[in-house]
């Protein structure tokens, strides 16, 4: 069997905020093309772990590699040393991220939101980046809104733009941090269907979500987190239908 580098490899990842320990040793492997959903109560450390993956948060202990590389560090004489800002930016730009609150750049049009990363960050030619941006906007169903400002869009539309913005960077890995949690219920569907569509492309994805139906349909694997630990993980059918741990069972009873 061919051995490939996992897209995400976490070993014993710990994270402190001051004296509060929020991650107690996370071990997780995501293979290329795999879609992994992380579920759990709020405050269980799901989002913190996700933010550690692209180095928005620094980890306190353990190892966290994306495609075989540390995102914010390098090995240097047996120690981990912070990378130069430029290298962090390059490595981080290979990881797309979609936030709970969209975080579209409010001073830019939809089109500029999609092109600023490729043009100003990756120094791609303007024409190429713009062309791809239009394609992506069409793909998320917003081809006619390129010149609108984010404040003129509905929440669902904004989140679809945010997904297109992340895809515009041609990421090796997509991180979704509760992408539908701040949406009105009737807008959740349009965003989830866009994410499903991307998953069909064999894009590697790590999704923190409260949408159990979505997890069942799209995920290759579901992890249940509680108090900074991964309590249980497995294929969605198994974990969601027949959880082994009492904590998982209690959580699923509460949300389903």
């Amino acid at each position, binding site marked *: 069997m061919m051995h490939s580098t996992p897209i995400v490899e976490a070993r014993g990842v710990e994270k402190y905020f001051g004296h509060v320990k929020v991650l107690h040793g996370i071990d997780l492997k995501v293979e290329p093309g795999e879609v992994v959903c992380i579920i759990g109560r709020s405050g269980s450390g799901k989002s913190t772990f996700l933010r550690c993956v692209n180095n*928005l948060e620094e980890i306190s202990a353990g190892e966290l590699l994306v495609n075989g590389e540390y995102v914010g560090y390098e090995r240097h004489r047996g120690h981990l040393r912070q990378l130069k*800002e430029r290298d962090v930016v390059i490595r981080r730009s290979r990881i797309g991220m979609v936030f709970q609150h969209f975080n579209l750049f*409010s001073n830019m049009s939809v089109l500029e939101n999609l092109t600023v*990363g490729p043009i100003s960050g990756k120094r791609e030619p303007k024409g190429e980046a713009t062309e791809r941006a239009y394609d992506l906007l069409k793909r998320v169903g917003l081809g*006619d809104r390129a010149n609108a*400002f984010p404040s003129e869009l509905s929440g669902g539309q904004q989140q679809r733009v945010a997904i297109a913005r992340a895809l515009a960077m041609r990421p090796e890995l997509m991180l979704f941090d509760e992408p539908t949690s701040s949406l009105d219920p009737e807008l959740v569907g349009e965003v989830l269907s866009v994410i499903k569509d991307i998953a069909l492309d064999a894009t590697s994805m790590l999704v923190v979500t409260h949408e159990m139906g979505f997890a069942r349909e799209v995920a290759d694997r579901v992890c249940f987190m509680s108090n900074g630990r991964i309590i249980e993980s497995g294929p969605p059918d198994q974990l969601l239908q027949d959880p082994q741990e009492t904590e998982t069972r209690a959580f699923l009873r509460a949300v389903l």
Partner: protein
Amino acid sequence: MEQHTDSRSVVGTQVDDPVKIIKRHSPGRWLAVAVVLVFVAMLVNSLFTNPGFEWSIVWQYLFDQRILSGVAMTLKLTAVSMTLAIMLGVTLALMILSSNNLLFLVARSFVWVFRGTPLLVQLLLWSFIAALYPTLSVGIPFGPAFISFDSNVVITVFIAGVLGLGLNAAAYMAEIVRAGVMSVPKGQFEAAKVVGLSWGKMMHKVVLPQAMRIIVPPTGNQLVQMLKYSSLVSVIALRELLTSAQLIYSRTFEVIPLLLVVCIWYLAITTALNFGQAHLERHFGKGTGEDNTGRLRSIVFWPFRWLRDKTLVDKSKTGKKLVQ
């Protein structure tokens, strides 16, 4: 209704025959208007009847060569000082926001000193700087100097004025810019990071354009204040607007009319600056669906509305759109 291009747009929000709501006028409001009008009438009357104003002399000096060169000096002094203040202020703000403790402390100390001492004293100190540092030199720190200058030659009255006004305003600008940057939501910084923008690009493309909305109004204040505080340089004998007027009335004793000339010029310049500020506010307000600059405009230009109605139709379409 052009924003409803989405397939699930709301139907039937267009009102063909809007309800006409008549404004209600209260007696108290009428009374207040009457009182204010009487006072305004008294003031205007005195402007014309009090001989002390000597309007003919005002008119005679308004475009006097000496006054005009004073105006030019005031404008030059303000422009150069404000440029210095903005550049230094942005630098100081970024130093205060940086994670480096030394940079933070140096910038904080600068703000502490220059905001904590009177501008007038700072101006005097700069003009007497030669007493403290007789020569200024370029060389190796604590080592030999390559070139030396006489401070009295380098620090002219104009340079002293610029340093005094500019460094003082920089301390205030630092706080204004810092407040602006801090007003940008944290999510914008994070989003900039994940789309591969370096720190500099993030500031330039995302943070500062959004911070400008907060920065512009107090900066306009600062500029207007700077314009007027530039009259303080009369104490170091720089011939700006006020000094020029003083030089004239010290010989002719026409104090009031010349001070009126000074006021008219200051008012004219600040009015022009206000227009510029309103323009900037509209520019940096794009994407927010807000325009807070329109009220005064609509009152002042009310008599010319027939002219504006034609030109403003297209603007109103692109200007204000609400969140759906």
